């Protein structure tokens, strides 16, 4: 991913430094067929988006076990994104629809325990939506940054 989005990376770094000295660590789980391709398109199209997301490619958003998301938070991620194909477009017909239910429960529980729900996003990004990918990451980073700013001092993220 990094070599494909080289320019974006540098641009993102500069803007991040202006806003906040501490870099965020955000993990994105992207399905192989739509969202990963969408992110790839954003890269080759030289669209700019924050570089604070680290992408993990998975076969399908239906593969995302909530344990993976929690593990990220436990190990110090500031935010997590799960991104898959639009409903109806899943390479495996319906994996993303299972994911939709699971992530709703997960997100609700996170919020119930007082974890800022802005730290956990889910998106549908197709292979042709390079721009949507860039927008998604931008809004995610903004949200996580806002959550970070509002978090009480001394309270660890997890």
């Amino acid at each position: 991913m990094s070599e494909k989005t080289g320019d974006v990376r540098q641009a993102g770094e500069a803007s991040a430094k202006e806003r906040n000295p501490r870099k965020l660590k955000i993990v994105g789980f992207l399905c192989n067929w739509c969202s990963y391709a969408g992110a790839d398109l954003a890269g080759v199209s030289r669209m700019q988006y924050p570089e604070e997301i680290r992408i993990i490619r998975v076969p399908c958003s239906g593969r995302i076990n909530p344990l993976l998301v929690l593990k990220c938070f436990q190990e110090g991620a500031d935010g997590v994104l799960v991104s898959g194909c639009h409903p109806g477009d899943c390479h495996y017909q319906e994996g993303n629809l299972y994911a939709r239910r699971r992530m709703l429960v997960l997100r609700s529980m996170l919020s119930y325990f007082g974890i800022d729900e802005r730290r956990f996003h889910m998106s549908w990004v197709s292979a042709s939506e390079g721009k949507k990918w860039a927008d998604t990451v931008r809004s995610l980073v903004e949200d996580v940054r806002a959550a970070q700013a509002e978090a009480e001092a001394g309270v660890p993220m997890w």
Partner: protein
Amino acid sequence: MKQSGKAAQDIGNDTGKTAMSLRKIATELLAKKAVGLVIGYGRSPLGDAVPLLVRRAEDAQALQWNQHCTYNLVRYLTDPEVVGGPEARGGGDGSGGAKSDSGKVAVVVKGCDLKALLVLQSENQVQRERLTVIGLSCPGLTDEQGRPLSKCRDCPPDVHNPREELCDLVVGGPVSRSGSETEGQQARDHDFRDVDEIEALSPAERRVLWDGYFARCLRCYACRNVCPLCYCKECVFDQHDPRWVSPAASVASNRSFHLIRAYHLAGRCVDCGECERACPVGIPLRRINRKAAKVVEEGFHFRAGLDPQAKSPLVGFADEDPQEFIE
């Protein structure tokens, strides 16, 4: 073979009569070798209610039924060391379930316990035809100090009188409880006032509230081990490779533990309340499980423990599932 009793006026007398019916039924079942094991309630030498495993007809007289019989005995139906099964080897006594007379098991269930059994049935964890389910009409239980259990306060009529079509026999019913019909009805319409209260707090307040509870959690796993629906051979919390959640108790690892526990029970938990009862440090676990139940009910229009055929909503989907949270 249905035993019927009149509506409970005097809980004491009625439970006494119910216990007698239970003993009679258990004695017959065991004597006829219709079952090899009856899982019911007994009394400890200290006078406490305890789960009781009866294998011989002459021991059935020890069966009890009273306001402290909170245990959800469905828990033991997935324990190979109790009911047998291919891998079960009893504790050297040779009476492990696999060798029991007929291999069949009778289990005493209250209405709330029955719901857990229905989930086990839907998940193919029990063979219903090998079970004799003895339903108990329940006038409501109390804790050791005599206060009604919180789960009993909201118990709707179709739960305190177990559904007859799902049991093999029902003992001691039907009971009605003053006030509980209407309250129960309300509870059925909107079940989640306790959850709403917490949702109404600010995120920071919720964090403080739950972190306070998580700081107390010892990770004794009593909540998991007492749960009739936590039957996995290898629990994710016992896996070493990968180790998903540290077994060392800390607010962070305990939060992960409780979140995953609730998630794995979403759409399955029947709110029998055993986890909360077992918790030695008073964590309000029902309020965690019921949050997940609320999400499932509101989002996927599903309530667990009503239909032995229904699958958990988290192994399915619907086109109209909510997705406002998705970008």
